[in-house]
């Protein structure tokens, strides 16, 4: 065995195996005790040695000959930093026609006044969006219930289309709706401008209705989904679920509901501590239960795939993309530097720009920490302003205590908004952070599946990435 130098890597232990993880997120599964042998230069077998060299864990030269390749791959992993903000969320109104028990957006009654965006605000917001250098722009309409404001949707899209005649960006339009009010007018707009529908389906009727606070909610959502599919095409309708306390008891039933309704995937999404959801009395218990819920549901989804039904879990897919491909993901919650501002901006009905969806939810509770400026302000003053510069000092998990030396850091992200809202400061304290606990548990679980059930799960995981 030649003399070698170590390259940066970290490791986790999982049931009798060690998993080495380097700065690129490449993994190598080895036997327990291997790390100690590698570090102390004790004898290791030839095959392991070759794998360690080939996968950038050790080097036979002080400066590895492929260092430039390594650096290029690292740059690619952080590619979203050069791309500019791609996701632009337009919160059209707080008006809503449902009464969700965990509403994170602090929605108001359907007939409420003065809680919708004006056309002037929309025009300013669209102009700001085009100041982002991103070649791909996603213009996402949220609420409240944005389908209650069809004129505003149409106005915003037409404004964007007009500007795009010269800008030539690739624009994706998304309408986040509960599907209760998918009128012909709304659907015509969607058809004309190729708008995708993102709706909420929490599971079978008894879960969905309980979560959404109306007895007919499930039936309305399903008929809305079918109506949208018939009018726009099946591929234009996606659904998201939110895991309420009640949902935690029914992981398999919720997955079955998605399969039954013809979806080929779902996002097992935890509740976030904003809006009404922040009033949950025991977040620690919820977090523990959610982790178990997630594992049960993921295993069930793997089983479905083994039995011939292609069905993807989206959160796992994001993590797998980080583990198994050289590319970055656009998922805001698992980015470092953080997804806020870098990957998403919020144009709110109140006339202000916010750092993330959660930031505007905090504003409804009177906390304007992440309000970045007015919709009428200059883009540069918002994006390069004092507030953003202050947030930027703590938005990379590479420099945060408790994160910088975490073995799964490369797959995880930083979330100053969550730290601020749950712990009272943007920097955060990892030992008590539920964001940290949940992400670490799920990432480590997915790694353990690869380490212990490789032959069984890898063909399925790879199929999710295609």
């Amino acid at each position, binding site marked *: 065995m030649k003399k070698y*130098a*170590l*390259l*940066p*890597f*970290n*490791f986790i232990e999982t049931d009798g195996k060690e998993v080495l993880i380097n*700065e690129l997120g490449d993994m190598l599964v080895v036997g327990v005790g291997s*790390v*100690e042998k590698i*570090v102390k230069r004790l004898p290791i077998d030839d095959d392991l040695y070759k794998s360690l060299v080939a996968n950038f864990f050790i*080097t036979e030269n002080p*400066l*590895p000959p492929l*260092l*430039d390749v*390594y*650096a*290029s791959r*690292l*740059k690619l992993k*952080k590619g979203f930093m050069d791309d500019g903000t791609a996701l632009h969320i337009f919160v059209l109104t707080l008006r809503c026609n449902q009464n969700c028990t965990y509403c994170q957006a602090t929605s108001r009654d359907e007939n409420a006044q003065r809680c919708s965006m004006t056309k002037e605000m929309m025009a300013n917001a669209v102009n700001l969006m085009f100041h982002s250098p991103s070649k791909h722009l996603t213009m996402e309409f949220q609420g409240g219930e944005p389908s209650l404001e069809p004129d505003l949707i149409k106005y915003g899209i037409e404004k964007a289309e007009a500007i795009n005649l010269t800008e030539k960006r690739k624009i994706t339009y998304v309408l986040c709706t509960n599907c209760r009010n998918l009128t012909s007018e709304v659907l015509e707009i969607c058809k004309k401008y190729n708008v995708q529908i993102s709706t909420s389906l929490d599971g079978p009727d008894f879960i969905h209705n309980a979560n959404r606070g109306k007895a007919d909610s499930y039936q309305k959502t399903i008929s809305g989904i079918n109506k949208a599919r018939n009018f726009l095409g099946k591929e234009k309708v996606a659904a998201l679920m939110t895991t309420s306390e009640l949902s935690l008891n029914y992981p398999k039933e919720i997955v079955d509901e998605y399969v039954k309704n013809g979806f080929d995937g779902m996002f097992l999404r935890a509740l976030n501590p904003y809006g009404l959801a922040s009033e949950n009395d025991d977040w620690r218990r919820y977090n523990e239960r959610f982790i178990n819920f997630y594992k049960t549901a993921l295993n069930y989804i793997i089983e479905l795939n083994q039995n011939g039904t292609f069905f993807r879990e989206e959160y796992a897919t994001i993590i797998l993309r980080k583990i198994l491909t050289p590319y970055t993901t656009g998922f805001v919650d698992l980015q470092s530097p953080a997804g806020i501002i870098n990957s998403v901006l919020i144009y709110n009905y109140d006339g202000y720009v916010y750092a993330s969806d959660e930031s505007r939810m905090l504003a409804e509770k009177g906390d304007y920490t992440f309000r970045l400026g007015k919709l009428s302000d200059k883009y540069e003053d918002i994006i390069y302003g004092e507030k953003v510069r202050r947030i930027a000092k703590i938005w990379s998990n590479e420099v945060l*205590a*408790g994160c910088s*030396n975490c073995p799964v850091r490369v797959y995880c992200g930083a979330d100053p908004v969550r730290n601020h809202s749950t712990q009272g400061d943007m920097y955060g*304290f*990892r*030992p*008590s952070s539920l964001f940290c606990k949940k992400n670490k548990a799920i990432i480590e679980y997915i790694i353990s599946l690869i380490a212990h059930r490789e032959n069984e799960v890898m063909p399925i995981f790879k199929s999710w990435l295609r």
Partner: protein
Amino acid sequence: MTITVDRRIYSDKCISDVVYWLSYCYTLERTIDGDFEKITVTSDGGEKFRTEFFRRLNDCKLRSIIETETKDIRTILYAKAFGDFDCLTAEEATE
């Protein structure tokens, strides 16, 4: 309960890291005495605490060796990947 740690074996970084993670559940007071550090646990952790403390300390030591040994190559790697120093003013570079 007081635990004595030999600072010639375990670096300040390692001890600090372990104290950081355990400080959520325990109140810990650190006192340096020559080559040794005394860690006083004001809430009663018992033998379970001692075992957990040294498990974490030894785990951290291994990670710390890798981190220390690869510090320079990591700096070079990040500089190659993201270095764009021409664009920075002297003031920004030292900020």
